[in-house]
């Protein structure tokens, strides 16, 4: 084959054009473009927020679609084409240095986001996200509006739930620390309220719990557990002061199950997120043990009711 200019130019353009027709033009013609059941139009403010998101390269670390193989993403909706209807650009992202955000709306409170944008480590101590304080309040607000809209109608439902409980939480907080704690405990299912920590508060367990506390809790609840972490000034209601819990033991003896339940499920309406996606059972019990021993000064771990001791538990280490 002789590569004459005619063959060369004609062929190059022709093959390229054929590819374009198959890979680009044909999808334009054939793809149905309809909103999905969770889709809703974005407000002006949310659109502004999307611009902030795009301009500042948030998409280099955050993806915008949940896959079939994904774990650990709160509202587990596998992405559908209609979710992105009219979004310009539907910025899917190619990297997950941070979590996927496609269903982030309503997962956290606005307060939480504000603290998080000012310094991501305020709410997530291990985060490698840069601080966005320099954007200024206005831009951060727009960005927050956009993030809270992710998930469409589903996000709106989550936001509504956040607002409903936020109102009650604020009322409870205003009524004073003790009634606040009574209110918080009243929202925990019965079985959990009367459950001791089934893990013995061994040295190993407590130090593991401390490790986890530093990676998840410290910047809200503070290094001494008094609720004065670095994020506290941004959060309303503020983080709980654990040292008050000593006088709120259930039946004068139980606290482990309460701590476990709150860590696991969070307190919707406040900035306390759920941790059941990040942490599994033993890790949460270890944190409860650490909080109980270190900040409350009392632990119900390994007390009755309990069944047969697990085979590894030693008699000596029991409190």
């Amino acid at each position, binding site marked *: *084959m*002789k*590569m*004459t*200019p005619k063959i*060369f130019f004609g062929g*190059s*353009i022709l*093959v*390229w*054009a054929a*590819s*374009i027709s*198959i*890979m*680009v033009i044909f*999808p*334009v013609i054939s*793809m149905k473009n309809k909103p999905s059941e969770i889709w809703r139009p974005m407000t002006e403010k949310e659109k502004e927020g999307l611009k902030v*998101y795009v*301009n*500042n*390269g*948030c998409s*280099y*670390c955050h*993806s915008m679609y949940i*896959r079939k*193989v*994904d*774990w*650990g993403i709160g509202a587990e909706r596998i*992405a559908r*084409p209609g*979710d992105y*209807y*009219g*979004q*310009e*650009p*539907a*910025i*899917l992202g*190619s*990297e*997950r240095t941070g*979590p996927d955000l496609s269903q982030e709306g309503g997962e956290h409170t606005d307060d939480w986001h504000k603290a998080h944008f000012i*310094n991501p*480590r305020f709410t*997530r101590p*291990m*985060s*490698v*996200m*840069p*601080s966005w*304080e*320099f954007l200024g309040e206005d831009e951060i607000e727009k960005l927050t509006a956009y993030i809270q809209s992710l998930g469409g109608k589903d996000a709106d439902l989550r936001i509504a739930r956040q607002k409903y409980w936020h109102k009650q939480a604020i009322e409870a907080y205003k009524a004073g620390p003790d009634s606040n704690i009574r209110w918080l405990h009243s929202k925990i299912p019965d079985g959990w309220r009367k459950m001791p920590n089934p893990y013995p508060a061994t040295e190993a367990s407590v130090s593991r719990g401390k490790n986890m506390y530093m*990676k998840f809790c410290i910047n809200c609840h503070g290094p001494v557990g008094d609720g004065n972490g670095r994020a506290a000034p941004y959060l309303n209601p503020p983080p709980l002061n654990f040292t008050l819990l000593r006088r709120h033991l259930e039946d004068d003896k139980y606290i482990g199950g309460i701590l476990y339940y709150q860590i696991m499920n969070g307190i919707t309406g406040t900035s306390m997120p759920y941790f059941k*996606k990040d942490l599994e059972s033993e890790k949460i019990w270890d944190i409860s043990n650490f909080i109980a021993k270190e900040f409350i000064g009392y632990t119900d771990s390994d007390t009755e009711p309990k069944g047969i001791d697990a085979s590894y538990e030693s008699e000596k280490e029991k409190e």
Partner: protein
Amino acid sequence: MTDNFRTGNSPNFQEGGLRGFFSKNSALAFIVAGSAWFIVGTLYGLFSAIHLMAPEFFNNIPALVFGRVRPSHVNTVLYGFVVTTLIGLGMYYTPALLKTKLWSEPLGWVSLFLWNITVLSGPVFFSMGMSQGREYTEYLWPFDVTFMIAIVTIIINLVMTIIHRKEYVLYVSIWYFVASFIWIGGSYFIGNVMWRPSTGALPGILDSIFLWFYAHALPGLLLTPLAIGAAYFIIPRVTKTPLFSHTLSIVGFWTLVTFYSHIGGHHLLQAPIPHWLKTMSVVDSMMMFIPVIIVIVNLWMTMRGRGNLIMADPAAKWVAMGLIWYLIVGAQGSIQSIPQIQKVTHFNNWTVAHAHIAVLGFSGFIALGGVWHVIPLITRRKLYSQRLANLQFGLVMIGLTGFFLVLTIAGLIQGEAWYNGETVYRVLPQLQPYMILRTIFGLFIISGALVGFYNLIRSIRKPKEYPYISASHAVIIETQKNPEI
């Protein structure tokens, strides 16, 4: 067969001085610009790496926030360093292989100017928080326009050069070089959705198909043909052997454009796009083995028995290593397009490692080899220092190899952990040592960029006559071997 062929310009600095010399040498200006962008681009890479290691190092400095330095790094290295350098090489070897001058040096300078304005717009506007945000198409619309005009002027210049050629045969390097602009011109316009200037995007999920079509046209239809063109030019010249097979070059050329333009969808295997598009992308990704292997075999066979010449030449070493990276990145690319493998490798540092050996390893190595090969031909002087060229090779080689291994490991840690149920947040601390190592290896690469720039500037300025070598050597032996073409 020595002739009096010249590259169209007098290398005599006495007439018109350095500026006069440059004005007749837009090719050289492209090369110098490329080496300068190499420093800028890798510095931005360093900023990004520091962020991932110590997120509060540049706390609240808007211009240095990760989301803004990352696109500055990617675009500057890609378009600024690799593509600019490779354009410079082609602007030299195309007229040389056609035994003529570049049709218009002033037009070459217009292309150069517009091209560099485009590249410069990246760091300038991204650092102010102005970006179109879609990966590899971040440049703002006015600079999409300068990009397009630069491409069109280059095409005009090359077509006119071909029309005015004195050598009938179009050597394989010329196919690749000229075609890359035709392909990228069209792909850039479509992939950037240039008819929607405000966002540069289409509404809805359809946009991702446009974006990732372009994002793979970029390595496939720009970086690869540019780099292969340079490799086809340099290797036979250094080994002084005819190209192994004319037929293979033809098959390689046509299979490249056929398969490489179909694979963008493999970035979206887990996203909600039509299934047939994913299937096609995966199939064509596997087919990509063919053009990759063809180039490797063709040039490898050309080098056969001449390894000593390659190793002794400070330029050819880069090119040969670039081809090895090409084999690795090509094989990796095909394999990681398989959906079952992507379950683990998608979304994490595995891909970052892959991208680095594609841009810096494959096309970057060949571009740098091309610089050290072509500079003596343009200036007709010896390189300022072969030892510095070798030092740069060592620095970049150590840096990139370490970088690749470290990020691949980090990617596997992420991918396996996520696949087994860990959250993204929980895996972060495990990556820290690898992020530190990545920064260290990155420093090797930056040092390489600095050493190279110094060597280049000194090579241009240092007056020392160089024994003349005909640049048309490759095409001569090609013609001799295949009298029918």
